[in-house]
């Protein structure tokens, strides 16, 4: 059985036996840093191409298929193009904030990467308040967006940024309440414990109806949080020019673009961890034989499979539904998603106390 745990353990042992502890720790940090940056780069490439191909298939056409076999190198070509573009700073723009904004959005995305468990024993930082940390740090990206809108010295950017800020802040409530539903069921904020509690089955199935409601609300809320269609009025390509990133070009635009897709990956990873068991294989209760067979598939494959399924779901939403107007967007959140998720939380607390789940 292929396991990433063996690789990380052996590397760790080798490091601690060869260098003194401080140096080994520093080298570990450097390795993790390169892995995280490498993951971002690869994810950016893969997700942008996946989006274009999935979009094309749903619109009965082919996607990019000329650059490389089946169009695999299209994103590489796009990245090269963006790198070679002139990064123009508009005339009256606040230079410091203008340059800082893409980095804040990117850093927030990178920070949320830390507690996510990619495979068994393959987690950068298993903090005991993992879920709270994720929820809190993902809110920091709103600052980057507002900064970008303000510093662009452009009224459309400002409008787009304000709308985006309002949207993200409101939908965080519903997303947070859905996350809390799972925390109530599993009894811990720590990511590794939440995954371990799904040993006998994923919470989506064990928590039956309330968990399914929480999952649906979570998916809708994170689609809105990452500014994806149908909630993308902030960056609506045909309506608000390009919202808060209108004035960005070249490498800075590439950072925003990349940060959007990384955010989609991260929220899907969180959703997969909480509702679909993270790297835990599909177990049914105490059926030892079946569970044993499921364990043969490596945990990293399980995790990536679930995350990419959720990413596909979010992409499916984008190419099916028309865009929501900003008042319809906020209406949906405050009048429908929030009351339903609060009521759902009460329901889940009830079934957790009475033990009415599997």
């Amino acid at each position, binding site marked *: 059985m292929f396991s990433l745990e063996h690789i990380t353990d052996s590397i760790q042992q080798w490091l601690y036996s060869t260098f003194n502890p401080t140096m080994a720790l520093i080298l570990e940090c450097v390795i993790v840093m390169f892995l995280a940056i490498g993951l971002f780069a690869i994810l950016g490439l893969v997700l942008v191409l996946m989006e274009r191909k999935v979009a094309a298939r749903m619109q*009965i*056409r*082919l996607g990019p298929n000329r650059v490389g076999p089946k169009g695999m190198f299209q994103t590489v070509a796009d990245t090269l193009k963006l790198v070679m573009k002139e990064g123009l700073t508009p005339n009256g723009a606040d230079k410091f904030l203008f340059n800082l904004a893409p980095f804040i959005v990117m850093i927030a995305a990178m920070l949320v990467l830390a507690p996510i468990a990619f495979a068994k024993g393959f987690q950068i930082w298993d903090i005991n308040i993992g879920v709270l940390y994720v929820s809190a740090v993902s809110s920091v990206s709103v600052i980057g967006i507002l900064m970008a809108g303000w510093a662009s010295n452009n009224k459309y950017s400002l409008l787009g940024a304000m709308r985006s800020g309002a949207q993200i802040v409101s939908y965080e409530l519903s997303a947070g309440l859905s996350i809390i539903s799972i925390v109530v069921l599993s009894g811990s904020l720590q990511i590794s414990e939440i995954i371990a509690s799904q040993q006998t089955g994923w919470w989506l199935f064990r928590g039956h109806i309330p968990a399914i409601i929480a999952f649906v609300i979570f998916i809708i809320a994170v689609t809105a949080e990452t500014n994806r269609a149908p909630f993308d009025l902030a960056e609506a390509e045909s309506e608000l020019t390009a919202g808060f990133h209108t004035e960005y070009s070249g490498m800075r635009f590439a950072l925003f673009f990349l940060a959007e897709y990384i955010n989609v990956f991260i929220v899907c990873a969180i959703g997969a961890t909480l509702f679909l068991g993270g790297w835990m294989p599909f177990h049914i209760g105490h059926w030892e034989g079946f569970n044993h067979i499921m364990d043969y598939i490596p945990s990293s494959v399980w995790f990536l499979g679930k995350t990419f399924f959720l990413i596909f779901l979010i992409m*499916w939403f984008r190419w*099916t*539904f028309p865009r929501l107007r900003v008042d319809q967007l906020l209406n949906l959140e405050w009048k*429908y998603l929030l009351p339903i998720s609060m009521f759902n939380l009460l329901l889940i607390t009830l079934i957790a106390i009475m033990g009415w789940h599997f």
Partner: protein
Amino acid sequence: MFLKQYISDVYHAVASLLKGMKTTGHYFIRPKEIITQQYPDNRAQMQLPERFRGEVVMTHDDNNEHACTGCTACELACPNATIKIITKFDTTPEGKKKKALDTFVYHLELCTMCNLCVEACPTSAIKMAQTFEHSVFDRNQLLKKLNNPGSKLRAGVE
């Protein structure tokens, strides 16, 4: 009651969303229905619709005869003077002088493929062909003469 309306709203909303997703999902799992034609790889199998408007040509039959009487209806109908009819005077067997077509000058570089000339022609002498690859390096190659050399009006057209 408000609650009943609320629940009914939510239910109908979810049902309509799922119906939309079913449609796009239906297309996603059926790659055979993709309608993109990969030009220029498919030149051999390309099938253009019959009403495609490529360039104006004059139909000639097996005896190299056409149906153009030189009435200049097409030249009058053309919105930007793409067609110029040059007529000559033929002598009929009875000795009378009859107007006939000498040259049908057609400026392909000016043509907008609007089909007005084809509609104006009373004898259906011209039609729109299905060729669309008109790029040339020398503009003079786009000035065409539509009636074949040595062709004449088919008997019985007018």
